[in-house]
């Protein structure tokens, strides 16, 4: 309050500097209140990953607001969590510099990263500072396989998602009397899509599927007509796409336009927009019956319902980046509570020992082994009339899968 009187320049500056800097002044106002615990939120906030980064930021901030409103970290005398935002843009080098900046600002831990290359670079740099790092998405398996003791991934990695995705696909197919035999893979040709395609090509034959075509494309792909026609000519029972959000939407719309309709389904694994609520809502016809195996929450938990209501009230998109970051921040806060300290080593140990289970994700108690939460698993969703429904695991499914999809009518 006192500071605000010092002139509009100062107050505007503080306003613009965001919550991170604003809390610097907090002790002055509150007098004896404990020092806030700074948490670095590293996300690609600008550039072509900005959507994912900003969604991630929202998720983490929502959790922080709730935790602070509920009295902060009690073992630290009710210390508030103070987010410090860092923009990794889309370059690993920037991510590294931002980790250094966060370390310099005295954060207790860093959360985020989203993209695998950013996460790889950021975790390694955080390790140099001895800072605990909570990965939000970053699915590449190497992230937790490098012996970095500071790095924790709450969500499932690439291998786990693919394994579950394929197992669920086989289960669906077998239950329906094996309507699907032939597969076309459509993937973006970066690290994520190509890696996925390679894995699928290796594993699908063992599950009784025949890959009849694999089509890679760059990001962004300006037009999907030719790809749609090639898919149509291959006439597969199943299409498995792996690409980023913009391209996914364009692809799905083009498939509908060209009447590409596989007999069994479009079954994505980590599909860019396949479980994206706005896509489903905006294009109920074109997106109908699209399946995805991806990060997703358990919609039936009371916490999830409250979460979804808040997200809706804020008019945010309900996406997995939001869900994961919200959950990861709760895990981190729990670890802080137990560590009763912001000391890096103590906090790291507390995270490593986490058995926290009060999140919206369908994971059960957290258990980190070599940094990977082994309870983490993906979920299968299916878009039905503009709504993303959970279809698998059946324990918390909100709808029954439609597989194969009904014939065009």
């Amino acid at each position, binding site marked *: 309050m006192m500071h605000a009187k010092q002139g509009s320049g100062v107050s505007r500056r503080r306003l613009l500097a965001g919550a991170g800097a604003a809390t610097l002044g907090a002790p002055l106002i509150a007098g004896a209140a404990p020092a806030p615990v700074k948490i670095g939120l590293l996300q690609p906030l600008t550039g072509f990953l900005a*959507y994912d980064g*900003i969604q991630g930021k929202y998720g983490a901030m929502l959790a922080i607001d709730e935790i602070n409103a509920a009295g902060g970290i009690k073992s630290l005398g009710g210390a508030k969590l103070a987010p410090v935002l860092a923009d990794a843009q889309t370059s690993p080098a920037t991510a590294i510099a931002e980790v250094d900046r966060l370390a310099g600002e005295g954060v207790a831990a860093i959360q985020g990263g989203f993209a695998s290359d950013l996460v790889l670079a950021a975790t390694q740099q955080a390790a140099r500072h001895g800072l605990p790092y909570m990965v939000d998405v970053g699915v590449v398996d190497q992230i937790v396989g490098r012996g970095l003791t500071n790095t924790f991934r709450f969500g499932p990695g690439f291998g786990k998602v693919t394994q579950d995705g394929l197992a669920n696909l086989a289960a669906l197919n077998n239950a329906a009397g094996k309507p699907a035999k032939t597969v076309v893979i459509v993937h973006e040709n970066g690290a994520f899509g190509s890696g996925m395609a390679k894995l699928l090509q290796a594993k699908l034959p063992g599950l009784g599927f025949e890959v009849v075509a694999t089509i890679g494309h*760059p990001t962004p792909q300006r037009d999907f007509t*030719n790809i749609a*026609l090639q898919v149509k000519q291959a006439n597969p029972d199943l299409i498995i796409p792996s690409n980023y959000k*913009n391209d996914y*939407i364009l692809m799905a*719309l083009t498939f509908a*336009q060209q009447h590409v309709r596989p007999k069994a389904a479009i079954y994505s694994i980590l599909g860019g927009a396949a479980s994206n609520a706005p896509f489903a809502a905006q294009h109920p016809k074109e997106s109908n019956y699209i399946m995805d195996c991806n990060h997703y929450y358990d919609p039936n938990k009371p916490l999830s319902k409250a979460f979804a209501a808040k997200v809706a009230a804020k008019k945010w998109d309900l996406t997995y980046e939001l869900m994961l970051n919200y959950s990861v921040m709760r895990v981190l806060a729990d670890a802080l509570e137990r560590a009763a300290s912001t000391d890096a080593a103590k906090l790291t140990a507390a995270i490593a020992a986490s058995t926290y289970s009060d999140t919206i994700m369908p994971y059960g108690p957290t258990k980190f082994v070599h940094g990977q939460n082994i309870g983490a698993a993906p979920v299968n969703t299916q878009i039905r009339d503009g709504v993303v429904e959970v279809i698998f695991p059946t324990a918390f499914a909100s709808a029954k899968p439609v597989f194969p999809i009904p014939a065009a009518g």
Partner: protein
Amino acid sequence: MSTALLLSALVGGLANGAVYALVALGLTLIYGVLHIINFAHGSLLMLALYASWILWSALGVSPYVALVLLAPLFFALGYALQRWVIGPAGQGRDANVLLVTLGVSIVIDNLALAVFGPATRTVDIPLATSTIDLGVMYLPLPRLIAFVAALLLSGGLWLLLNRTDLGRAIRAVARESDAARLVGIRVAHIHAVTFGIGTASVAAAACLLLPSFYVSPDAGYAFVLVAFTVVVMGGMGSFPGALLAGLVIGVIESFSGLWFGPSLAPIGIYAAFALVLLFRPTGLFGARA
């Protein structure tokens, strides 16, 4: 490879090529007259896509109607940009102009991110999903409209440049700006008008593109490089050249995508581009040096 697939690749390539040509028309005008490489072109395209999307989502205005509104609006924007930003800050030095347009694109891209948010938006009008059944493929109606519009727009721009007083002034400035100044042409004004017309063309292209595409703050990037290749391949400043080069590039991309996979399709474009430049440096339609 079936005949049907080849035929559809040809049609698809032509349809895409028309869009490339549309996006490149404004660029080739600016390039041909001001001799500057406008890095902000993609950002202006993105901005126009947003403008068109806003008109649709807020007022229900179809992008095809929005074109009539947005073209003059973007003319004004382009005029102002060149007259009061790019011109004064570029100071006639190529390198500086380049950096100024880069700066403009950074500003537009990031303001769009801050204002519109990062989400991907699409318009949902019946026409957007209408198709014409060609047997081998369904031709999306928006693509057919874009094709016809590309022909009309390049024809219109050609007429404007070759049959009007304004056009004569623009061509005079393009050839010899010093001489044009001597005969009393206000060069800075003509430059701004040219930039305005180029920007209005981008707005038109955006309105025609939106029904079969999407808009997000990074939507322009998809077209920047390809638009530059179209401009240079067509011979800078040539509308028929841009139209032809756009179609050629669309078809090359389509076929190289078919034969080598879409991943390698860009190589087809850039290789063709490099070859054309190396062996016919003034482009397909450029005047011989």
